[in-house]
């Protein structure tokens, strides 16, 4: 059956494109991170390699590839190499269920419209949750396998941090589910299409961020912590732990951790956009350009990410844990219950 | 075609692995893991049977079992830590102040 094989080819292409896009996004993010940090510190950032330093990421990668691979003698060989691979793999996989555009036939190329999403699952939210949680393993293993004090402590710290914020993360997810009544990300995104008319004049996008602002706040804060980004970048905490769990990593395996971190940022942003910011929908703008809107929203969030990093000082570790357990967690529980009560009251 | 029996067989296999682990492994954590494998083997059975019976009950039960497994793991780890404080080892053979 030609259609089936065609759709298979299409599916593979889609996966390839997503994969490549994620790779590229990491490279682009590295560039922008450096650029923005430069701006934030009133300097110019990378500007030597290529025009405006645009080729800087390429140079970085080439350099990393040709670096000497060092592995401490006492390290656990298998786990040492497995850890970065695991990190990177899970980072990529999590994006699979995020829809980044409306169903399209690609201008009539296809007989049936296909969703712009690697996998449309009815339990997509759970899958995201599950796969991102698996990222912790990479960090723990890296910390443990290196057999270095800094690595171990970094690994432990970051895993403790990640699990601490995962609870708030999960509960804020639940608050969206209460509103959306579905576990499918596509359903959730579709439910956010269109707009309300506030006082019949002011259009407000039907984004859940307006229904559950606290949920969005919790989600994003927890997301930052989940991805070990400043102000929660403890695993790396250069001043305390050298480079945390990847102290002993060099060359490509180091690059993979780096890659995983950036891809994770994209994933968290993608999920946040899908859950709270209407996904690829912007009221009043054409849906067929959805991927573009989606990209734009992600870019905005990512900019926010980087902005935060260069603006806010790093928390102290005990403050970080306190914040997670004693502020964010109760807040997320209250948020969930209030949201649920609100939904029941108004529905 | 994968039938119920395939799942049950896999589940039995996992259960046996877990059982064997409890008897053969010589590390406290591994013992704990073996027990968890046993519980998960049973979970597999539940889900498979639930699907075979055409009800979601099997999956619901699995939820409860997961909870129990988590609680068990938490308590088990706590006990292991308590033990470790005394002897600085994870080998069950080191703990002989009570005769078996």
């Amino acid at each position, binding site marked *: 059956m030609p259609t089936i094989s065609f759709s298979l080819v299409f599916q593979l292409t889609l996966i390839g494109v997503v994969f490549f896009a994620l790779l590229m996004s990491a490279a682009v993010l590295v560039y922008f991170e450096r650029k923005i940090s430069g701006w934030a510190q009133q300097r110019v950032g990378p500007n030597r390699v290529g025009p405006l330093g645009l080729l800087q990421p390429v140079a970085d990668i080439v350099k990393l590839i040709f670096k000497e691979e060092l592995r401490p003698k006492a390290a656990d060989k298998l786990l040492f190499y497995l850890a970065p691979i695991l990190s990177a793999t899970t980072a990529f996989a999590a994006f699979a269920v995020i829809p980044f555009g409306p169903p399209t036939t690609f201008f009539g190329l296809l007989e049936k419209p296909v969703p712009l999403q690697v996998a449309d699952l009815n339990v997509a939210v759970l899958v995201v949750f599950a796969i991102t949680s698996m990222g912790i393993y990479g960090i723990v293993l890296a910390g443990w396998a290196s057999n270095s004090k800094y690595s171990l402590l970094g690994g432990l710290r970051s895993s403790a941090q990640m699990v601490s914020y995962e609870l708030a993360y999960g509960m804020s997810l639940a608050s969206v589910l209460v509103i959306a009544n579905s576990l499918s990300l596509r359903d959730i995104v579709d439910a956010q299409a269109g707009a309300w008319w506030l006082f019949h004049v002011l259009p407000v996008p039907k984004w859940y961020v307006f229904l559950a602002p606290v949920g969005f706040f919790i989600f994003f804060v927890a997301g930052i912590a989940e991805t070990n980004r400043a102000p929660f970048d403890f695993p790396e905490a250069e001043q305390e732990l050298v480079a945390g769990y990847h102290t002993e990593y060099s060359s490509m395996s180091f690059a993979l951790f780096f890659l995983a971190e950036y891809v994770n940022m994209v994933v968290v942003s993608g999920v946040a956009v899908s859950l709270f910011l209407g996904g690829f929908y912007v009221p009043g703008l054409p849906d067929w350009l959805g991927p573009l809107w989606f990209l734009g929203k992600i870019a905005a969030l990512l900019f926010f990410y980087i902005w935060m990093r260069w603006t806010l000082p790093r928390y102290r570790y005990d403050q970080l844990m306190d914040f997670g357990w004693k502020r964010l967690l109760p807040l997320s529980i209250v948020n969930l219950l209030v949201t649920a009560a609100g939904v029941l009251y108004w529905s | 075609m994968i039938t119920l029996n395939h799942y049950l067989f896999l589940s039995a296999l996992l259960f046996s692995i877990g059982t064997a682990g409890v008897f053969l492994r010589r590390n406290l954590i591994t013992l704990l893991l073996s*027990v968890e494998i046993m519980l998960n083997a049973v979970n597999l059975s539940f889900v498979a049977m*639930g699907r*075979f019976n055409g009800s979601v009950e099997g999956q619901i039960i699995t939820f*409860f079992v997961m909870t*129990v497994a988590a609680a068990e793991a938490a308590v088990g780890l706590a006990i292991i830590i308590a*033990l470790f404080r005394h002897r600085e080892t994870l080998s069950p053979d080191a703990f002989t102040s009570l005769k*078996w």
Partner: protein
Amino acid sequence: MMTDLQAIMPILIVTLTAIVTMVAESFQPKGERVPLGGLGLIGLTGAAIASVLLWGRDLTGFGVMRADNFALFIYVTLCVIGILTILFSGVVVDRERIPSGEYFALTLFGISGMMLMAGASDLLVIFLALEVMSLSVYVLTGIRRSSEAGAEAAFKYFLLGAFSSAFFLYGVAFTYGVVGSTRLDQVAATLASQVSGPSVMVILALAFLLVGFAFKVSAVPFHMWTPDAYEGAPTLVTGFMSTGVKAAAFAAFIRVFLSAFEPMHGEWAPIVSALAVATMVLGTTVGVAQGNVKRMLAYSSIAHGGYLLVGLVAANSVGKAGMLFYLASYGVTNVAAFGLMALLSTEDHPHDNVRDFAGLWYRRPTMAAAMTIFLLSLGGLPPTAGFVAKWYVFAAAVQEGYYGLAIIGVLTSVVSVYFYLRIVVMMYMSEDVAVDPAPAVPRSAMAGLALATGAIFYLGVVPTRVINLAVQSVQGLF
């Protein structure tokens, strides 16, 4: 909804008390001490009263909990065990530096799990209850952090307990596979309608459930954890778990095997008989060789499990009522015996060697007399509760023609008298008087001992009332 809640009211009360105890302790101001034991006493008394009020109403809670007389009888028994435990605990907890909030809370959580287990009419709920109970008891076993033996005992208990619950759960899975439900009434209905003999799945279900229960009631050869757990745990906890866990496990055992799996009595009776024989024989013979009293009582508790299994095999109304009576009398006796040992112990001196009892009669005649009564009751000598209990169980066996079981039972109980008497000999007939490390016994503990002694004689001399209640309890079991 209201009747649902009513049906689980005793459990609710205990659980609530447990939570309040736990939270109250963590919120108590530094230096001040909230009387946590008192909370437990109030809660347990309340639960017992609630159980009595529910008597005869046969309510069903949420479809998975029964508040039938059987459950209520066990509830009251468990409450009494809990009350006794708490009465003994007050001074001992301080003396042995056991964290009191956790101790009382876990005890109460354990009791709530036990009650849940006795009242559950759904295999899954039984499993959950089993875990609630077990997890509490595991932690209680290792609650003295300074005690290496405690931690070791806790781990052994935990490992084999978790192992056995996995077996139990596998049995539940098979039952679910056959029946499509874990509700006991539906299991019974399905099994009863099997015309062409039980299928492999049913046999597997039966076998796994049996192994799970056998572990929990420490039937030989699934008893390995018992002596270690009993010896390593703080004495009070040993008393608590040797009675409460046994009562709850047997309650569920009875409910599952005599209601749901009743149609397969022919299949499991021979196996359980073999277990019973092995349990009685090994429990007593190995018990003889023990120098540690806790270990000795552990083996005695194994043997008592064997006697109870005899009642289970007999499976007639006498046997079932007898088991309930047995559980009640054994529970009161054993918890009191361990409590007394705990009262005599200090932090660095556990008072658990037979030698520690030397000359106790000369030092503390009241304690010695009480201990004697408990031991005689454990040994099944009239006119104590233990005698009537054994009488009942063996009567059930004889009634069903299991003469062999009954004979082995009575002979092993004679052997067991031997090792109970060793302690008596030490207390009364030893010339070398051991040092008495423990300070005075507080009034609450004396009240507990008096209560237990009274109960033992009450059950031993005028057992009619309790027996009638037990008979009423098992009537609704089918």
